[in-house]
């Protein structure tokens, strides 16, 4: 997946290869966008259809959100490419604090 500079010592071949690589990647982007739209539709439908209990719907739509965010991070923000080790560390560290904070606020604060 990594869009790396290549050294075949023939610039035309390299360019041709890169062009095809990024066109291919663009197709992946469109596929992941379609999946994100689909996940969004499922989440809205799960709420619009009144048949489910909150105990099912709430965890289900949160799960869908996480899946959608993985698409957004790894495809749209290119985290699947090489050279994203430090960005991953920063983001997962942030996410760790995020989850701890949400958990703490929801369990410690009450009225």
């Amino acid at each position, binding site marked *: 997946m990594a869009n790396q500079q290549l050294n075949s010592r023939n610039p035309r071949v390299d360019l041709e290869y890169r062009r095809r690589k990024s066109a291919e990647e663009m197709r992946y982007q469109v596929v992941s966008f379609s999946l994100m739209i689909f996940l969004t539709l499922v989440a809205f439908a799960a709420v619009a259809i009144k048949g489910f209990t909150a105990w099912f719907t709430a965890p289900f739509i949160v799960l869908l959100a996480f899946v959608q965010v993985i698409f957004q991070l790894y495809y749209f923000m290119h985290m699947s490419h090489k050279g994203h080790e430090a960005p991953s560390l920063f983001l997962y560290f*942030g996410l760790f*604090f995020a989850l701890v904070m949400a958990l703490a606020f929801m369990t410690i604060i009450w009225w």
Partner: protein
Amino acid sequence: MHAEEKLTYETWPAEPERSTLEAKNKFLGFWLFLGGETVLFASLFATYLALKDKVPSPEHALAKDLYDLPLTFVATMLLLTSSLTSVYAMYHMKNFNTQKMMLWLGVTVALGLGFLGLEIYEFSHYVHEFGHTFTSSAFGSAFYTLVGFHGAHVTFGLAWILALILRNYKRGLDLYNAPKFYVASLYWHFIDVVWVFIFTVVYLMGMVG
């Protein structure tokens, strides 16, 4: 390669956003900033979750009275699509096509403006129809801080992308401005990441109860 070098379609590097030392630093620094933004939004989400529906008296509107599914859906579609259009812009940036990159960034800005318009309508609707204001309840404060902070990010992102478009319209792409466009598009995607959690945790879960 250095930032001011005049490049052609043939000599344009595969990763223009990380081809100079300055660009590498910018890239790394920006991701560190996004990690910090995650923590910032997490604290606002946590506050919202703790204070949801905490109102001083029964006549105050609760989450399920306020939120409107179709409006949230349209806003979500606008922002999601604007994320795709900024991916298109970066695709053309990698292919050294300044005009098409500018065009797609323009589309991104237009969609972002649409989203912002809907949010302004939504807030004024809540204030005038329901008396749901920043100071009316703890719920109101938490809601407007979280969603408003996101709206402020959208506003800042729009101003940022617009400034880049105007500043670089005649200049064309080089290794000095390519990382700037790339980082701005990362910011725009991050705004969408936050919105995914807002529409799920605030709006959809608010309507579930």
